[in-house]
């Protein structure tokens, strides 16, 4: 379990708080998504959880224990896939993996065994002797995910893990994440692909300007907004109206002669709505 308690972060010379009293609780085995616009503070929060960056105030507890840079036993439970590519480009794929394994204190034999399996799983086997510099952006990202899994973390933190991946690869990563979740791994991820969070996450939190606004299951959020959406093109813009039942939506359609499309509401609608930049209005 990860408990985030009143985390505040102000970068040196920054005027605004990157995080402002953020409190969250993520259960063991839960897949938790953090959604928010650019600059909302998602990466900052994840860096603090993984001790990459220190909070200005507040604490993070993992399984009830305060995590700091010095707590090697707790850090052992975590792996972090950063938003930026963070691999040594002068090393080969295999060496990148080995470096990470060694840093996690794994034996050479275990590293070799798991490395082969993970590279195979991420389609990188034939690249294992290539320099990381020679991988495509998507392959580098897959390598980061493979690397993160090498040490068998209990908690996997992923900051936009599927940026730059093709649709197939992205879905494979989703399947992999769901697989990991089913095996009891705790997942914490951010993404701008709301669909990804809807697919993978048990619960999501919305964060904007350093503040967490809503925390709930995607299902509940969609239900609260209205399960059905009607997109109306009016005044040169598409406006979405939400309805709890399909009959309500159909009634609305018959009451107007504008161009209308009825569909199921997605988490993206919720996101657009909550973030204030949404074009939708409640009907």
């Amino acid at each position, binding site marked *: 379990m990860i408990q985030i308690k009143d985390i505040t972060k102000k970068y040196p010379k920054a005027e605004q708080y990157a995080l402002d009293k953020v409190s969250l609780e993520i259960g063991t085995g839960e897949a938790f998504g953090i959604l928010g616009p650019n600059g909302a503070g998602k990466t900052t929060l994840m860096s603090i959880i993984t001790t*990459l960056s*220190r909070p200005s105030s507040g604490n993070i507890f993992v399984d009830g224990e305060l995590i700091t840079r010095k707590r090697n036993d707790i850090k*052992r439970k975590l792996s972090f896939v950063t938003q930026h590519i963070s691999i040594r480009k002068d090393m080969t794929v295999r060496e990148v993996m080995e470096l990470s394994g060694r*840093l996690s*204190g794994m034996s050479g034999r275990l590293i070799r065994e798991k490395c082969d399996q993970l590279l*195979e799983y991420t389609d990188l086997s034939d690249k294992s002797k290539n320099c990381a510099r020679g991988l495509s952006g998507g392959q580098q990202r897959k390598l980061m995910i493979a690397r993160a899994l090498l040490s068998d973390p209990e908690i996997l933190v992923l900051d936009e893990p599927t940026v730059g991946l093709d649709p197939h690869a992205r879905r494979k990563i989703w399947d992999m994440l769901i697989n990991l979740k089913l095996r009891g791994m705790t997942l914490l991820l951010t993404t701008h692909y709301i669909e990804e969070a809807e697919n993978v996450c048990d619960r999501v939190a919305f964060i904007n300007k350093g503040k967490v606004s809503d925390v709930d299951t995607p299902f509940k959020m969609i239900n609260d907004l209205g399960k059905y959406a009607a997109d109306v093109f009016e005044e040169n813009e598409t406006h979405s109206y939400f309805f709890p039942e399909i009959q309500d939506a159909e009634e609305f359609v018959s009451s107007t002669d504008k161009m209308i499309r009825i569909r199921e509401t997605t988490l993206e609608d919720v996101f657009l709505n909550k973030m204030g930049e949404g074009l939708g209005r409640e009907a």
Partner: protein
Amino acid sequence: MNEKAEWLDLAQEKCANEKSGLYYVFGGIRTAVWEKWIEFKHEWKKITASSLISPLLYMLALGWGLGSMVNTGDRPYIDFLVPGIIALTTMNTGYNSVSVSLNVQRLYERSFDQVIISPTPIFSYIIGQMIGGALRGMYAGVLILLLSIPFGVSIHINPLFFVVMFLNGMLFSALGVLASVIAASHLDISRFSTFVIIPMTFLCNTMFPVERMPAAVGVIISCLPLTHTSRLLRGIAYGESINLLSILFLVCLLAAFIVLTNVVVNKKNNL
């Protein structure tokens, strides 16, 4: 991707061997030295070639060229020069091999992030980096010894000679680590080099004796570590008795750099 997720099944094995803190400390040192070794393995040809160039130039220009014009008593100038070159080369190599690559990893490739979040104590990893840098410095030093053979240099060598080379390399690798964690940009590394490393290269008893300097300047220079290294190496090379205080001075300075680096690393909120 493979359908079977076998890699997940090794989880049990991990739990079976929980590691103690000391395991991670030694593991961290070993990992960093291994990393420096991989770096070397990939680039050893370039590293070797570039480690040969500047000593060769020093020996040609100063040893042969200038050396034929200077009167150094009963010893040829090149015998005086070679220990100095070894001192400055172990310094430069130690400093550069650590500061440049660590800086690239910290600010550009950002792979240093992985070190921070890993269970390996950063401190032990950093010690490992220093050892790796010291070994690289020694490698360059040994190359110069080999290079000096065709120049007909006659100097004594004993195990202590290598110890001093290592110590000097480690001292400046430590400085390299310190510079790279303080640096806000890559340019800072070369600026630091311009202000600290290059002056020492020329002034610290490397190409001419400190005694030739004005007394006041000499005092300052005597406080710089490279002066002591050159003096030690030259003492051994000449077969004279060496000053143990100089060794103690280097060891203390090294300890101070290690502590300082550790303090800086721990104080930084955003590495």
